[in-house]
């Protein structure tokens, strides 16, 4: 059980985290948000790499800033970006990290390292220097090291960025099988990652947790209120932006498709369409779902 209470983290004048509070139980939790929303700050704070300015994080009842080892001993962490020691093979490096993670039994270590290398499809490259890996391979290596030991809390920060579709699929596959009894936090700005995998999610923006719910539930809140229309000119788009709650604009074959949130059709030339998680995400992120609005809905 992870309890986050009034977590604030400031860097100078910048509030990277602004009074964030939520609890997490076992399961895959997706954290969506644009760049700069504070996702990585939250992830790093959870991973004990930095301390909050105020607020607490409790893991199974223990404050992790007071006793970071409580988290570190059960943590599997894949940072957003990381480097590796030069001239070390995947085998050596995993073995090295396994020791640091406390797997002091040589046989156990060997088994895990080999299984993981197979699992992330790096077995054939196990003796090659990790520094020579391509981005996808390196990311899979990152997963492997995060799964070393017996992690109860797995934090993966933007893991699918830069992966090709096949790699991404494979990665998500591994993650989803990591175990139901574990707390897994997946931070991403790719909405599909969350939609496909997570039973629970949150949206972050400007350092705050805007909403936290199951993906379906979020979609539910705006179901039937998404309207689209194709317009030709940029002026027309601007006009809509001035009058409507625009969720997204998208260029499609020379025209611009504008999606808006509206209880009823804004006009005759607007069509309704199926609600996507993406719509819910933008609706919350853009502040259309203030408490009043949500209550009203």
């Amino acid at each position, binding site marked *: 059980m992870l309890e986050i209470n009034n977590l604030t983290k400031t860097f100078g004048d910048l509030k990277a985290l602004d009074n964030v509070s939520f609890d997490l139980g076992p399961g895959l939790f997706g954290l969506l948000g644009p760049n700069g929303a504070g996702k990585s700050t939250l992830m790093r704070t959870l991973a004990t*790499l930095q*301390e909050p300015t105020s607020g607490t994080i409790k893991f199974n009842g223990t404050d992790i800033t007071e006793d970071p080892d409580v988290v570190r001993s059960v943590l599997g962490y894949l940072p957003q970006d990381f480097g590796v020691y030069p001239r070390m093979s995947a085998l050596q490096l995993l073995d090295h990290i396994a020791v*640091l993670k*406390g797997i002091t039994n040589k046989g156990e270590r060997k088994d895990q390292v080999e299984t993981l290398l197979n*699992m992330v499809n790096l077995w054939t*490259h196990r003796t090659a*220097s990790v520094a*020579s890996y391509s981005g996808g391979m390196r990311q899979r290596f990152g997963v492997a090291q995060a799964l070393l030991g*017996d992690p109860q809390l797995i934090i993966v920060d933007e893991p699918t960025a830069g992966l090709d579709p096949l790699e991404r699929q494979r990665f998500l596959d591994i993650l989803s099988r990591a175990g139901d009894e574990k707390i897994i936090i997946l931070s991403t700005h790719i909405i599909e990652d969350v939609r496909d995998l997570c039973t629970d999610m949150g949206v972050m923006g400007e350092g705050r947790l805007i909403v936290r719910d199951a993906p379906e539930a979020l979609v539910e809140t705006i179901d039937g209120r998404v309207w689209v229309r194709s317009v030709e000119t940029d002026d027309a788009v601007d006009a809509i932006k001035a009058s409507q709650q625009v969720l997204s604009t998208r260029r499609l074959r020379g025209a611009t498709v504008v999606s808006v949130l509206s209880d009823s059709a804004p006009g005759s030339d607007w069509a309704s369409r199926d609600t996507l998680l993406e719509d819910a995400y933008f609706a919350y992120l853009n502040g259309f779902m203030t408490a009043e609005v949500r209550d009203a809905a």
Partner: protein
Amino acid sequence: MLRDLLKFEFLLQFRQIGFWVTIGILTLVGLLAGSADFLTVGVEGGERIKVNGSYVIASFVGTISVLIIFFAAVFVVTGLMRDDLHKSLEIIHSTPVKTHDMVLSRMVIVCLTVFLCAFASVVGYALGQFMPWADAEKFQAFNLVYYLQPIFVFLVINTILVTSIYTLVAVTTRNRAIVYVSAVAVFVASITISGILTSQAPEWLRMVADPFGSEGFAVLTEFWPPAERNTRLVPLDNLYGVNRALALAVGLILFALSFNLSKRGILSRGGRRSVDTPAGPAPKQVAAATPNLGFGHVLATLGRRTWFEFTTTMRSVAIIILVSLAVVIFVINLIYGDTFNPDPTLQTSSTIVRLAMGSFGLSMIIIMVFFGSDIVWRDRTAGMHKIIDATPAKSASLLFAKWGALALLLFFLVCMGMVMGLIAHFIFGETDVVPRTYLAIGIMNFFMIYFFQGMLVMFIQNFMPGRVIGMILSGGILVGLAFIGNLPFYHPLMNFGTPSPGAFSEMAGFSNVKSFFWEFGYWFSFVAFLAVLSIWLWRRGLQAGLLDRLRSFSKRFTLVTGAAAVASLVAFVSFGVVGYNDYAARDYRNSDAQEAYLADYEKLVTDVWDRPTPRITSVSIDADFDPYTRTAQFDGRYRIDNPYDAPISRVFVSSGRGLDNILKFDMDGAAKVEGEDLADTLAAEHDIWEYEFSPPLLPGESREVQFTTRYAGPTITSGSAINNNGTFVNNAQALIRFGGLENGFMNNPDTRRKYGLGERVRWPDREDDAARRYHLLTSFSGYSDSVDFDARVCTVASQIPVAPGKFVREYEEDGKRCREYRAINPIHNFFSFLTADYELREGVWNNPNGEDVKLEIYFHPEHYYNVDAMMDAMKVSFDTFTDLFTPYQYAQMRIMEFPYGSFAQAFAGTVPFSENIGFVRDPGNADDPKTVDFASYVTMHEIGHMWFAHQVVGAFAKGSNVLSESLTEYATMVAYERAFGLEAARRMHEVRATRRYLTDRTTDRDDEPVLAKAENQFYLNYSKGSWVFWGMRGLIDDATIERATKRFLVEHHIDKGAPYPTTLELVDILKEEAGPAYHTLIDDYWNRITFWELGFQDDKEVVIAPEGDGYSITVPITVDKKYASEEDGKETSVSEIEGSDLQEFVQIAFYTEDPEDNLGATPDMIETVEVKASDTEWEFFMEERPTHVILDPFRYLIERNTKDNSKELDGPSES
């Protein structure tokens, strides 16, 4: 475009902290060097040689220009390699900037940055003069030119040269480690070159070969007296100019080369990239492995990380190059170090291991600074820290693994050094391999210091915002630590991380192992405390800023670390207090405090120091040594009398041991003065008692004195002069003395001025009849003429006790071995006691008077190398000196080896002789005219003292020491020539006399007197004295000098007692014996500071014309003679002095083959001409056509520049 780039690059360098830190440090160094007296360049800079004189400025600039080697590498890396470093290469290199603009702007700015840093130091130095604390006497008027020339000659050229080398390495390798390594290589090259090019190497080679120009500068300025050092600029119209031009040219060529070799874009390293393979069937889950996070985990991570950090470092190319460099330096030094050394080192275990460790020394500093930073920052540099720091590995494990890896690395390298030394010793060595010596020196003298320095670097890096700034700072601190002793508030407790077991001797081992363990404990607990601090503030995770870490401090604090901090701090303070008290107990003072103390002392005794004291007439000593506890006790009896016309009522009493170690002191009818200010202060603060005779000691009356003194054992901060094996103490150190207060007066005129002490007390004038009552040795051990002497010396059964006098008996007392010695005739009140585990070599010299003299050499059994040679030297000496002079006066002659020191001392019939200058010395090859044999030479010198000092001794007045040392040098040269021939003697003259006189006179802080009035100047008593006798023998003749010396010996023999002779009598006798023709020459040698200047006339050739059966040779020569001022050495030609004419004896020698190898000692024809005008022509006839001509080939005349004294003659013309 180029202008914009230049501006951009400049601003970029300008914004670097490293730039400002370097500028700041260097300016400060310059400012202090140019103003403060605790930071000086060499021995120069004082009243005679001004701090802002042309020579001292140039020396300073030259030194700074060598520092460039280090910081230039950093700027080249940051300036030229930052694209790689900051991973901005792809972006920058794909812009439309022209490659050559980019490269050129960077090179120019890096060069400029480096220059500015060095220049800042010179600016600081120049400003020093104007600082309020600067001593005005040390400066002359500011002269910009004195700065400009060295700035160009050294700074500009060396900046270009050094930076160009690094630039080439940087653009070709794009590997910053290799750039740093090349810095080491450059430095190593420079020190190796200056190491091999000793002062004995050919001058042309020294001028040309040093790429940084320091050697050439040294060659050109080495004989400059103060007057020239203050105002002369180094001439460049010679090979040195060529050297500087070459260095500049090479620098520019390397820049051009780098410019052309600079490549743009990503460097193809040919590295393999892994290609992904399609996904196959794979397990979808992994079995959990439960972490085991107990103490086992702490150890496992510590072990794994230490090994990881160590092996990763060991695999780096840079370290392999550094180690190879060290090996190369070692081999070069071992094989070629003595190439130009006429007196090579004997390679024993201790010298070889020192050489090996020394070769690693520089690499060690670089390794600490560079790899220390590498290790500390490794995870961050690689980007692994986010993963590593989120694991449950304890910070302590991660941290100590890093510290441990560096320690392990340093240890490994020290071991490598030892092994390398051992291997070399087995292959090349001619001495016995003593492995324990290797271990002792390698670990205790070297590894320990590296260890502490390395840990300090790790500590510093933990607090640095970046690794480069950390490197600069830790490098600066390591260098700064070497100068910590110069701080005005210095105390040895501040001398970070230097546990020292004291000096090492192959005979006696380390001089104080106790202090090693105390200092180790002290510094280790300090480092342990630093380690705890580092854990608390370890950079973990992403909150790397120091402030953030300080804020989290309370969370990092644990019971264990808290306890460790307290424990280490308590240990540190305890060790410190114990040490501090020990220093306090023996009245330790740093050099500033000591100066102030001596100044107070001198002011205190200014009215009483020259009181007459009783005379010691007989001495009887019971000495008891305990080498195990390193203690000794002396029970002594003196008989004293009053030879004056007035009664003596008061006398000052002291001992080299301090008052605390005088266990008993009874003087008949005398009592300690107490309750008087002076007496109480002297006793309390200066270890001097004042005694009052009651009734006074009347003229002619004699009384008895009984006393006991002792040597206490070593303490944690100071050794004992009594060693486990190999002790040598003399009476001035061990026993009681009267008077002698002037021994505590300071001589350095700068220091005296600082404390307002006025002119120092000079030795009495030779005409001072009162002074003639005393002889030279009065200045060592108080007033006496000669004494009756007997001694009983006891030591442990395994050792042999030795003292002067005839051996009477050996006996056993309380299980100790004791020997009794008794002088057969009165000796000086100057004697010694020795004990060691000796091997004895015996010989006999057949005295022509029929009374055989026993010759004995007592030596450390491992040091047998030169014993035979020394025995032969003793015999030759006795033969020579009895033949030339008077009979030998003692029944025996003993030489005893003793540890540590580098000198020998002649007591009556006994000579303590240190291992370093005789027993462990390579005697060279007797047949090679390029080597000299100091083992034999020093033996002969000490035997010579049996005549000069022990048969005739000078009055304690100016010139007194000349009568013992110069006459001894003369006798020694005769004996050496008899033993080894004229060629060897000629070489010895060059090595021992000429160069030493000419160089050492230039660095005297005081005036240079004429030889006849010399006081304690080594360069006069030994070097010039030796030169003058050599010259007189050559230009007058041997027989005359022998006759005069023998006359002096007989007429002023010590048996006659006071009044003692002075150089006035010696010079008179020399003049009488030589005749009026030589009076000018003798005066030039003895009563003036004379420099001759010989050469060939510029506008005339040496003409060789066939004549009869041979050739007539016409030699046009030019001769000048200059008299130098005593104050600053300014020279004036006799042509400008009214009433002085040239009337010089000059030898002209002809050779039919190149005379270089033996310095012209075997001419085919040699003639002495008497020159009476500056330009003269001389005609000679030779049957064989000469190929070379040399003026004054034996260097009889004192001449600074002899390069123009020799000429290769043209061969017969083709027609």
